[in-house]
């Protein structure tokens, strides 16, 4: 059924000022959803960000492993044992522990996650990072994280860094950023790591990064590793680990839950605002709708007008808020070094929510039209 007259559109643009305020209201509700969705997405991304930078097919972690920064040590023999399992190309041991970075200006101590690795090993997906890590052969040298918070104070390649009250020399940098987990990070060699934490000898890693021979099936090798290694470790594939990490952060940690609740409330608020706008719009035109009804137009036709108008409103609200949220995200990134980025999935997801909001509001608002009895009018 085609509408010869685009009635919904004409209704919308008839009273421009009213429409502008209505769109403003919707725009802000959508912006609120964008904000909360951005937080949630950033929390999710943040949780697995580190693992996405590392190059591995399977990961050996301890039985008590909880999340990246709450791992437990594994015996170095697990790494050695894993090397002899068929399908395994290489296994590298990685250490990770929270340390303290000293701001040279105000002497503040800031949280810093220290990665301990074997210089020359292939740890990262980015070859440039592997090349930088190879520079750490000398003792008491470190790579600094460009995405550490500004509160770390000034530092430069070739200059000193004070971590855990020990002075290290900065040999290079990389971009990782710990987001919600810590103020920043640093990479050192195994030897330097042991010194920083006063560990007498290399006996334990936190992670074993397993890479497979070309063509090997990750699930099959993971099963073989689980059989070969004692029960004190777990073997996870990369997707399993990423999924586990994100789930832990979003569904278990309070921050993730708060963002979810926030998004839900924003959605409800948006639906209520939209309902309010649509229903006052319909109330104002009740006579016109009743007249249309009396003229013999079907209820479906009139419904379609209401729904179309809801769609027009929500789309008119969506696009400006999409633009605004780019600015909001930029502001958030600048203020909190929180990895909030706009991506297509999020834009589409919020568009979907906006349309759902519109549908819910329209269904409630349209109840009025149904009750409009032409006879009441005259």
């Amino acid at each position, binding site marked *: 059924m085609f509408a010869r007259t685009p009635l919904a559109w004409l209704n919308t643009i008839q009273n421009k000022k009213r429409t502008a305020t209505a769109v403003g209201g919707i725009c802000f509700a959508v912006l609120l959803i964008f904000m909360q969705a951005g937080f949630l997405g950033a929390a999710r991304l943040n949780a697995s960000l580190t693992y996405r930078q590392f190059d591995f097919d399977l990961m050996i972690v301890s039985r008590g492993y909880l999340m990246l920064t709450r791992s437990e040590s594994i015996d170095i023999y697990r790494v050695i044992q894993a090397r002899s399992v068929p399908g395994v190309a290489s296994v590298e041991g990685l250490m990770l522990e929270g340390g303290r970075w000293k701001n040279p200006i105000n002497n503040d101590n800031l949280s810093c996650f220290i990665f301990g690795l074997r210089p020359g090993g292939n740890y990262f997906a980015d070859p440039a990072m592997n090349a930088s890590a190879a520079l750490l052969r000398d003792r008491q040298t470190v790579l600094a994280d460009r995405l550490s918070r500004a509160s770390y104070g000034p530092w430069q390649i070739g200059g000193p860094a004070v971590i855990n009250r020990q002075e290290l020399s900065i040999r290079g940098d990389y971009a990782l950023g710990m987001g919600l987990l810590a103020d920043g990070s640093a990479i050192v060699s195994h030897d330097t790591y042991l010194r920083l934490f006063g560990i007498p000898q290399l006996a334990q890693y936190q992670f074993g990064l397993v890479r497979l021979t070309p063509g090997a099936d990750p699930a099959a090798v993971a099963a073989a590793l689980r059989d070969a290694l004692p029960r004190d470790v777990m073997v996870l594939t990369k997707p399993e680990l990423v999924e586990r990490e994100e789930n832990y952060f979003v569904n278990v940690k309070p921050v993730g839950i708060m963002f979810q*609740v926030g998004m839900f409330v924003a959605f409800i608020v948006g639906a209520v605002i939209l309902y309010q706008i649509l229903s006052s719009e319909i109330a104002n035109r009740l006579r016109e709708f009743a007249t249309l009804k009396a003229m013999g137009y079907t209820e479906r036709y009139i419904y379609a007008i209401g729904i179309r108008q809801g769609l027009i409103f929500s789309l008119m609200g969506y696009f400006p808020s999409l633009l605004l949220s780019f600015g909001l995200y930029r502001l958030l990134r600048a203020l909190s070094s929180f990895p909030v980025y706009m991506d297509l999935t999020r834009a589409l997801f919020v568009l979907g929510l906006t349309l759902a909001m519109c549908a819910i509001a329209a269904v409630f608002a349209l109840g009025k039209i149904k009750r409009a009895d032409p006879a009441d009018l005259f």
Partner: protein
Amino acid sequence: MLIDKPSRLALSVVAVAFSVVIMFMELGFFNGSNDSAANIPPYFDCDLILSHKEKNHMKTGEEFPLAWVFKARDVPGVAASVAPYTGADYWWNPQAGSRNRVFTLCVDLEHPMFATGIIAAHRKALREPGSVLYDRLSRRELGKIDTGVKSTLGASPVKVVGLFELGPNFTYEGHLLMSADTFLKMHGQSREIVDMGLIRVKPGADIEEVRRRLLAALPPTALLLTPAEIHAREVSITTRRSPAGIVFGIGLLVGFAIGVIICYQILFNEVNDHLPQFATLKAMGHPPRFISGIVLHEALLMALAGFIPGLLAGAGLYVLIEHFTQIRMFLTPGRILLIFALTSGMCLIAGHLALKKVHSTDPADLF
């Protein structure tokens, strides 16, 4: 004028109520993050807290020798000083076998100067090595824990001999109290290195005076703060340093801005519809102030009408969030007043914006 159209009134009230809920929610997150991060200081039962100058919040471990704590006792005006030990460890869920991070606070059983009543009630049981008090409000992931449950902390077996209430925060899923002896044995840690000293001054002594004397007697790297100052510092660290504080702070601002826009939209429509009446009032010679008064009065009524359902819904939302996150959400009278002030401010700003329209109406245009 407000009750002229009941259906519109209901909608306006709902809209205001929702922006109130959004503000409550963001403020709740903000405070939940701050309160829970600063959950320890309110339980200090002392007058001054000694720490290393570089220790910028409770969870960093700049340490100093125990000798400082003893030295403090010689300073005139100091009644007693003790050193608690703190640490983070992993608690094994005795049912599921999973592991979670807990904060352990270890006190001198005779002079705890921390949650004194709780320690006194369990003093005898805590003397037994390996016995701990468990925070009943810790997250469910830690397991079903009651008095008598045996579990593992790090690598050591522990037994729960009593419960207390504190609540988890964003960093730690639970809290434990135990004797300093148990803690030191468990970690093989030296008694001589501490990170805090709790000091009580003699009754009647001036705290500021004692603080000056202590600073003079102790090495220059010593820092002395009152429990209230420690609390304020914890909150400010969370607010400024952690992204969570910033994120929820921005959320609160955006919630407020949205409230202004929604209220403006409602009032604008309201004014728009009553424009002939306003113009008539103007034509009748009422001064602009009288008309402003009506609109602002209307705005305030709207704020009040929206605030009450918003408060109720907000309180419900807090219970819900508390249930899911187990972060304690406190709805104090001060916070309720703050939101009420914000709501009134929001409606008044919106009222002023809407008034521009009224003042620009020319009675002559109408007739």
